[in-house]
């Protein structure tokens, strides 16, 4: 691949990023190729030395906040071609039909998004709360057990004491299990964010796997 093909390909893949962001990336990689050419490499070698294109775009996307990408998308859609007169007439006349549908659809989408988002963190929270209950139940069992034994209800107190120990003990490994779950959920959310970013960025070529 020569320099021009590489830069065009990079631009295609990053399409949808804010213009300044996109140009900065292109400038950086263009400079890198030029410096290698000055170093005596051929154009092909210089481009090959930069590594995999997918790797490059992934790294660039990683540091651009999702909000910025979505904003740019909205701006692009808005600044698209103007509406023709008959389209405006249709939109106005059709508003009793499409307005309620569009409204309800966007509300449903918003609610689904919020529910999904909350659910995500509630799952993690629930694990830790369960763990806390184990620990508290353990302490309560031990204390009540001791009190019951002191009051002369030895078998009953002994059982309570044992249950307390069991629960308290369980809370310790369960805590580490909670950490694993939380870590996994956070990793998953990163993957989802990356997936959403990829939806917005780049013109997909036919038949290409993203």
């Amino acid at each position, binding site marked *: 691949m020569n320099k021009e093909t590489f830069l065009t390909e990079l631009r295609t893949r990053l399409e949808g990023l804010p213009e300044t962001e996109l140009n900065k*990336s292109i400038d950086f990689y263009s400079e890198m190729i030029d*410096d290698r050419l000055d170093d005596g490499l051929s154009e092909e070698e210089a481009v090959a030395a*930069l*590594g*995999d294109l997918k790797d*490059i775009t992934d790294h660039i996307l990683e540091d651009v906040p999702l909000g910025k990408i979505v904003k740019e998308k909205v701006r692009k859609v808005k600044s698209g071609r103007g509406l023709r007169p008959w389209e405006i007439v249709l939109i106005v006349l059709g508003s009793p039909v499409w307005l309620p549908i569009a409204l309800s659809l966007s509300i449903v989408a918003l609610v689904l998004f919020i529910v999904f988002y909350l659910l995500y963190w509630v799952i993690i929270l629930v694990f830790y709360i369960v763990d806390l209950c184990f620990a508290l139940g353990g302490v309560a069992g031990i204390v009540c057990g001791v009190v019951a034994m002191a009051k002369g209800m030895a078998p009953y107190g002994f059982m309570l004491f044992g249950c307390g120990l069991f629960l308290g003990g369980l809370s310790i490994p369960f805590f580490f299990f909670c950490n694993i779950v939380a870590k996994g959920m956070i990793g998953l959310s990163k993957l989802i964010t990356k997936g959403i970013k990829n939806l917005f960025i780049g013109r997909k070529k036919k038949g290409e796997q993203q």
Partner: protein
Amino acid sequence: MENQMKRGLLDVCVLAAIKDADSYGYQIIKDMSPYVEISESTLYPILRRLEAGALLTVRSEEYNGRLRKYYHITPEGLKRIETFKEEWKEIMMIYEFVTKEGKKDE
């Protein structure tokens, strides 16, 4: 190596590469290469991040009929290197402790 840790380490490496004199992308990679392998795709987000955090500034200068970006370290950037050195002493102590324990086990 843990990703987060490596990220922080590379940030400091890049700052160290421009500590004594302003430098440009390809030179930074070449200067670092005897010590750590770093690719353009890794370097680019690091430079952006450091610029956003005001640890370095960027200026364009003409070279060979084209523009080249030179990176200049700020006082905050220098401070970051100093903090890293301090923190590293602590990490070396931990390393010593960990390896010492290892020998006892054998």
